[in-house]
């Protein structure tokens, strides 16, 4: 407001204010992730090397991809709980289709992607047109898809993954400048994150998903084709699940319970990344870091000697806590 030239101190103050404003706008997920990751690094020296960090990121990549798909469904106000059993289906089904023949790797991947699109279409159609709450639809789909995987394999999948199938999940690009090795899974995840960053944050589609999750009625009155957008969102989620499953196949075993509970990991990662359950808010980069944070948290629980099943309990607390926090704070605001 003053017309005199600003003094040094006032300029410093404004610079500081600008920096503070920038810091304040950093989502809490980033400091949380680095705090947990650094703690893990102290407890386990493996994470102090570039190689160790890459191993960590490679393992977290499929979860990040799942979480991006889950986040979009959550942002539209729904849930996709069929993700985990779709992962199982893809892994079991791929091992059946491949029948140890490397030449079939790409056709197998193509078929699985088509199945993913189909599952997403059914989920979305049941929610949009049969008006069943997505929780019930996708839980039913969880049974159905897993049942198909079991039926097909007779409960005990035969065969193993060929190397050219496994390479996506476990392989590295060699001789990459600066890094040396670079995990293929991480590269795929980054490509997907960038593509879906644009799809979700820079297209009409993403804005309409958020609008539906925020206020369905207003979205209809603003001309949004609610049903179509919903179906598309479930298709994206299932499609990304197939890609994540192929990456999981790179390092995991082939079994009929490999995907169990993964849908909840994806929901937890999305919630940690600031996604609002029941819709209206979500961000691709934050959710990617949400997945990293969850993976780091699992490592931390492991290092302090907590049995693996407690991971479920931690996820339950995260989900309830996040929703309770959101419900109680919005009530105070009104």
């Amino acid at each position, binding site marked *: 407001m003053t017309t005199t030239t600003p003094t040094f101190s006032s300029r410093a103050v404004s610079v500081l204010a600008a920096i503070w404003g920038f810091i304040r706008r950093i989502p809490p997920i980033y400091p949380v992730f680095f705090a947990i990751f650094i703690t893990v690094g102290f407890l386990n020296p493996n994470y102090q090397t570039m190689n160790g960090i890459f191993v960590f990121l490679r393992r977290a990549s499929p979860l990040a991809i799942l979480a991006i798909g889950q986040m979009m469904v959550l942002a539209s*106000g729904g849930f996709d709980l069929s993700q985990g059993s779709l992962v199982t289906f893809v892994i079991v089904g791929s091992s059946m289709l491949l029948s140890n023949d490397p030449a079939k790797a790409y056709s197998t991947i193509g078929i699985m992607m088509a199945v993913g699109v189909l599952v997403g279409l059914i989920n979305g159609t049941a929610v949009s047109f049969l008006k069943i709450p997505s929780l019930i639809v996708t839980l039913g789909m969880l*049974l*159905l898809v897993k049942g198909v995987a079991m*039926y097909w394999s007779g409960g005990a999948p035969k065969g193993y993954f060929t190397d050219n199938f496994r390479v996506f999940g476990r392989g590295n690009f060699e001789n990459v400048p600066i890094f040396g090795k670079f995990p293929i899974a991480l590269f795929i995840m980054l490509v997907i994150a960038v593509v879906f960053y644009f799809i979700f944050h820079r297209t009409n589609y993403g804005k309409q998903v958020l609008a539906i999750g925020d206020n369905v009625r207003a979205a209809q009155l603003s001309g949004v084709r609610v049903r179509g957008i919903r179906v598309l969102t479930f298709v994206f989620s299932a499609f990304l699940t197939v890609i994540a499953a192929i990456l999981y196949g790179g390092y995991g075993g082939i079994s009929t319970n490999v995907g169990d509970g993964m849908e909840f990991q994806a929901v937890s990662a999305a919630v940690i990344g600031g996604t609002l359950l029941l819709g209206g808010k979500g961000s691709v980069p934050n959710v990617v870091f949400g997945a990293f944070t969850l993976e780091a948290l699992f490592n931390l629980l492991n290092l302090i000697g907590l049995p693996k*099943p407690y991971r479920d*309990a931690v996820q*339950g607390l995260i989900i309830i806590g996040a929703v309770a926090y959101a419900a109680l704070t919005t*009530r105070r605001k009104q």
Partner: protein
Amino acid sequence: MATTTLPANGSKNFFRSLRIPPVYYFLVVVFVGGAILDFIFADGQMVTNPAILTNIFVRSVALGIVAVGQTFVMIGASIDLSVALVISVTAVMTSFIMNGQTENVPKAIAVVFLIGAFTGLVNGLIITKLKVNAFIATLGTTLILRGVLNATFANFKGSIPRSFEYFGYGRIGPIPVSILVLLVVVLAGWFVLARTRYGFQLYGTGGSSEVARLSGLRTDRVIIIAHIICSMTAVLTGLFVVSRLRAGAPWIGTDGVYDLESVATTVIGGTALAGGRGGVWGTLGGVLIFGVLDTLFNQLGINPFMKNILRGLIIILAVASYTIRSKREAA
């Protein structure tokens, strides 16, 4: 529903005055259709062999008991997806504490009912006091229970004593004890809903919490009690299941899909997802439909994995047949 007597307006409306939930007509259709399929593709024993006919009911006991509890919470416009895990916890804890000794039976039963009551209380408190959507809240408690259970028990642990098998296998005359237990639970559920102040309050709260509050009801308490009742029925189902399997394992509840099937049978029994109406007789009809289908699949020798596929399909279609008429967009 046979809850209130309506003055019959002439003999024309006789059937309407009986208030038979429509699900029973559907049950007849499913049964007749199933019997025909049975005669064509199998030995037709579903109708001719009383043992198999009885078996339909025995198979319905586990789902039926917990579905009564699910009906309570759903009439209150809530939902409980944690019942499957409560069943698992019950089964495991019972066989762990009993450890084959008859003298441990009372202790085991007391402990599991306490666990059930506590879970229901926590569910109810999270939903009413923390204002967390019931789906999400009970999904959250499911995860917590699963984590703690799987961390403590990895496989079958302990066993139940011979005496406790009476619940699962005993008979009074020609009638299995378990069927009597189911009937008692359904009757008790009907009595509470149709004849007590609590039942009236539950319908009021589920129908419109605004109207209920304006009439001076303490709606939070009504919902919490419904959740405690629901968890207790899950415990009873768990006791039945473990007495038949003779030992408990952590995957019993989830493999039985009790969460989704109890919701689906309640919905096809005429209790709306939105709450405020329905009753246990309708739910029993829904449960019997699932029992008939289950027995039919056995008769036809359908692969157990294929059964799971059909289950998923049936659940989605069953719920869809009721939601498709709704005008509101689902999410």
